[in-house]
């Protein structure tokens, strides 16, 4: 297999993003096709990278000749590769649903490519500062995307997102500053090696800064105030893309932080506690929701909490569960977001839309032949092997609450007069649903890479 440098994954979309206005001048219709092609190209690249990583372990790439303490290093680990594939494969599919829309704004496609590139960047970068840069690009890109509908809620949502996002990035900056102040390096490996030389308090302070900063993007409990309004304000495509790209990148960053950067025991307990809080609050808040998007947003928070619990258990099966949950959530939530009209939509009356939406709900609730189920199952197995009955009880309780409010969603979807989505939206949800079923029916193909990713993460690698 030809070993393409991973940097192409980021460089190509950025390049084409800035070429978009030129294409736009030729004809506005062309921009959509052009963006789709770029995203598909990027997807192929990510698959090639994934195969490369699976074949010969972690791929490192040194950029612009500087040596480790300063230079930019890309290190694509197994988890990174999986998430890269996930983001890059799903983003063109979600973008496909934008075709049906009448207005074709160049700025939207540009931002879309930009955020895809930056979220993949976060996932495959090797050093801390580089990750911060990509974080900033993703955040800013998402502000623009959320506001793309130009309605009152859109602006309100993006405003809250901007305020909280900037506070978060401030904290990340302070965290990086403390680390750089002591260790004079920003490379993950150097930091990991020489983290003990830092004085105790400095290490703790940097960890707190980083966890709070990244937490805002990763939708952890006290920091996710912006999530409901942002998702409600954003258009369907943007909301589903947010649940695919940025949120996964945020969780990946949390994982790198607690596993490689500052692997201290209390870090895991803290994230476990946060995960439980996020899960419980997210699910309960969703129970009484009137608006579909807000309900799905809260349910995403709940799922994030679940993934965080899986990550913080730092055992192999738990990490595999985390991977399955991430993949399941990304797929199912994007289907539901694309298909989310206001509550009383008669969407489920026509079979073409009812199928994928119904499968999406089933996967989130954790019904068997879907990734959602495998995730929950492995998580439960791991929790059981440690005898953590209280956590299991909480997960059980939240699953029942989930059952209640999704049944209301299904019932409301069935009533009311029949309404249909645009052709392209139907196409995209059908593709997403088929991926969902494929992964569900043949979990081996995701299980083996997940196990490798878990082992490398536990060993402190990328």
């Amino acid at each position: 297999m030809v070993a393409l440098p991973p940097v192409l994954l980021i460089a190509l979309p950025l390049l084409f993003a800035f070429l978009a206005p030129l294409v736009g001048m030729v004809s506005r219709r062309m921009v959509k096709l052009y963006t789709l092609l770029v995203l598909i190209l990027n997807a192929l690249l990510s698959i090639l990278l994934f195969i490369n990583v699976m074949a010969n372990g972690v791929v490192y790439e040194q950029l612009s000749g500087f040596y480790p303490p300063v230079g930019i290093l890309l290190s694509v680990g197994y988890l990174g590769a999986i998430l890269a594939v996930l983001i890059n494969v799903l983003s063109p599919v979600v973008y496909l649903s934008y075709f049906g829309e009448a207005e074709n704004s160049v700025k939207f496609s540009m931002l879309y490519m930009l955020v895809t590139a930056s979220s993949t960047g976060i996932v495959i970068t090797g050093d801390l500062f580089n990750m911060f840069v990509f974080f900033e690009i993703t955040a800013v890109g998402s502000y623009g995307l959320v506001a793309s509908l130009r309605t009152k809620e859109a602006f309100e949502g993006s405003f809250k997102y901007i305020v909280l996002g900037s506070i978060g990035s401030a904290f990340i900056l302070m965290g990086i500053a403390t680390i750089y102040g002591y260790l004079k390096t920003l490379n993950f490996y150097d930091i990991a090696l020489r983290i003990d030389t830092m004085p105790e308090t400095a290490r703790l302070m940097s960890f707190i800064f980083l966890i709070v900063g990244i937490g805002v993007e990763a939708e952890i409990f006290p920091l996710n105030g912006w999530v409901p309004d942002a998702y409600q304000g954003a258009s369907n495509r943007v909301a589903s893309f947010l649940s695919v790209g940025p949120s996964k990148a945020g969780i990946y960053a949390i994982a790198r932080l607690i596993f490689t950067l500052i692997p201290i025991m209390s870090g895991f307990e803290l994230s476990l506690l946060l995960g439980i809080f996020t899960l419980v609050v997210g699910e309960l808040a969703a129970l009484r929701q009137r608006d579909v998007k807000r309900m799905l947003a809260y349910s995403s928070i709940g799922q994030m909490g679940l993934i965080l619990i899986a990550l913080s258990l730092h055992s192999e099966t738990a990490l595999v569960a985390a991977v399955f949950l991430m993949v399941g959530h990304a797929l199912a939530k994007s289907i539901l977001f694309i298909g989310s009209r206001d509550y009383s939509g008669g969407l489920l009356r026509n079979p073409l839309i009812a199928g994928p939406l119904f499968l999406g709900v089933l996967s989130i609730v954790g019904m068997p032949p879907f990734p959602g189920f495998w995730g929950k199952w492995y998580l439960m197995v791991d929790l059981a092997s440690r005898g953590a009955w209280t956590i299991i009880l909480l997960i059980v309780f939240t699953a029942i609450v989930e059952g209640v409010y999704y049944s209301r969603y299904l019932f409301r979807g069935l009533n009311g007069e029949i309404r249909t989505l645009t052709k392209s939206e139907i196409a995209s949800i059908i593709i997403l649903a088929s991926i969902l079923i494929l992964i569900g029916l043949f979990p081996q193909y995701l299980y083996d890479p997940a196990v490798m990713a878990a082992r490398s993460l536990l060993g402190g690698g990328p």
Partner: protein
Amino acid sequence: MLMETFYAFIIGSLVVLALNRFPRIAAVVAIAVSLLPLFALIYWAPLVGLTLPSYLSLLRFETEISYALGPGTILLQITPLGWFFLFLLATTFPLVLLFASSFVRDNAGGFYASMLLTMLGSFGVLLARDMLTFFIFWEIMSWSILALVLRGHDRRAIVSYLAFGSLSAMLLLFGFMILYYKTGTFLFGEMALEATPLTLAGISMIVAGFAVKGALMPLHVWAPHVYSRSEEPFVAFLSGGLSKLGYFGMILFMYGVATVPFFATWGTFRGVPYFGYALAVIGAFTAFAGTVLAIMQDDLRKLLAYSSIGQLGYVAIGIGIGTPLALTGALFQALNHTFFKAVLFLAAGAVYYRTGRWKISELGGLGYKMPFTFLAALFAIFALASIPITSGFAAKWLLYEAAIEQGFLFVTPIMLIAGVGAFLYAYKILYGVFLGEPRHDVREAPLSQLVAMWILVLPLVVFLVFPGWVLDITSPILQEYGMQPVAHTPYVITTNLAAYNTIAVILALIGTLFLALILYKWKPQKVVPHEDNYLAGEPPENYEYISMHAASNYYEPFEDVFGGIFRKGAERGWEIVLAGAEFLSNGARRIYTGLTEDYSIYILLFFLVLVGWWLLW
């Protein structure tokens, strides 16, 4: 050929879904696919000691498949218990589809697809030998039932079904995890459970999970809504076949995984472990309350729903007591219930198909217009009321014998009274729907519906004459669980208290009927038109003001005296639970005030808390 059966079901459901616009072809395909488990059943018969003619078993089915997947392995294997319940499901499923071919009109493809997936799920559950497979197929079955419940478009049914469905699934999952924690393996065969409070909690959670599906009293709230709001063929299969899986699971876990000595370690009450006794008491209460509630219903489907809950209570009693006699009784009652409840629901469907009405007070006099439906329903009702001229009696008799053998002084009367209560609502169905003044002139139900009903009635007759055959099928189950099977010949069942000889009863009945016939045929008789009734001399022509059907609120005095207590017991309990959850969710929602300044304060507060907590700690 077993793995191909699973694939056939999946592909079949997809094909049927595609054939949505041609219901007839979809029905044919669905029925063809549905016959596969029947062939499997026939092929595996020797395993249960039944030697069937060889030409019947056309296809070869492996008895076991195993398939490694992640930490656990998928293991499917046929066991005598699995075979028995497969016998119940595989026979009713094709007939229910045959009935549905003429009953279901709109979106038939969706209906057949979900039914096939339900059967796939239950087929898998019956063969599962490890917890992962069991849970996978259990969940597939429950969400395909959800797909069918969704067709009913009723809010209470959908919300209550999914809420209780998730409750039962999560209870099972929690129980499985505890067992996995204690025994370290998922396979049923290798689980050596030692009796600790934790494993008892696990087993009781699993049993509670199955109790939800088997609609035992406190957890039954979803059943009346779902039964009365969905299409008839589905409900016949759901209440006839699928509710038995709850009890299949109970037997599998209470006697297969955790054997009787496991429960006996916590002391026994008159030879029955306390756990089993509690289940028996719940079952008895369910039987009694279900029957009383059934008596008070006016909607035919609700009545059948509560009666089904009542009859299932008997099965729970049998499983609770746990002696070989009680288990055989429970299995026999499950078998009877499958067939007569399927026939009753199908008959109700046929009546609805013709008259379009559900209320008993609006129906009446259909016996003369729909004679075959009436006869099938009549026989099923005799089986429901467990009268000795049907196989219903043998099952209840075994249960009574077991209860008396253990000296249950307080449970047996409740069981007997529930049995008598069954007469009341059995007659209410008979009189309200089929007898009384004729008010609708309708044709007989279509042929396909009649054939489905009549084939389902056959087992009730066959096992009336030879109850021993059922005991032949159940003996290997008892042997597998280390119990000594009940002494029986094809038509006599003997227990150490008394014997029951069916041939004696039948021959005596034929004799007395012959005697009555002679007495009866002595003089000719004149059939009188239907309106010619003695109503204190009122001439028939001004009948029009008698609009009130005699069967509307039929047992009104009973309701006046006992109505209050039973009216809304369980429902109110669950509403309180829901209100509690809603209160919590309001609390959680109040955190998200929607103001950015609050959220930023949250972040800073969180930061300070972290710093404070770590530095001081």
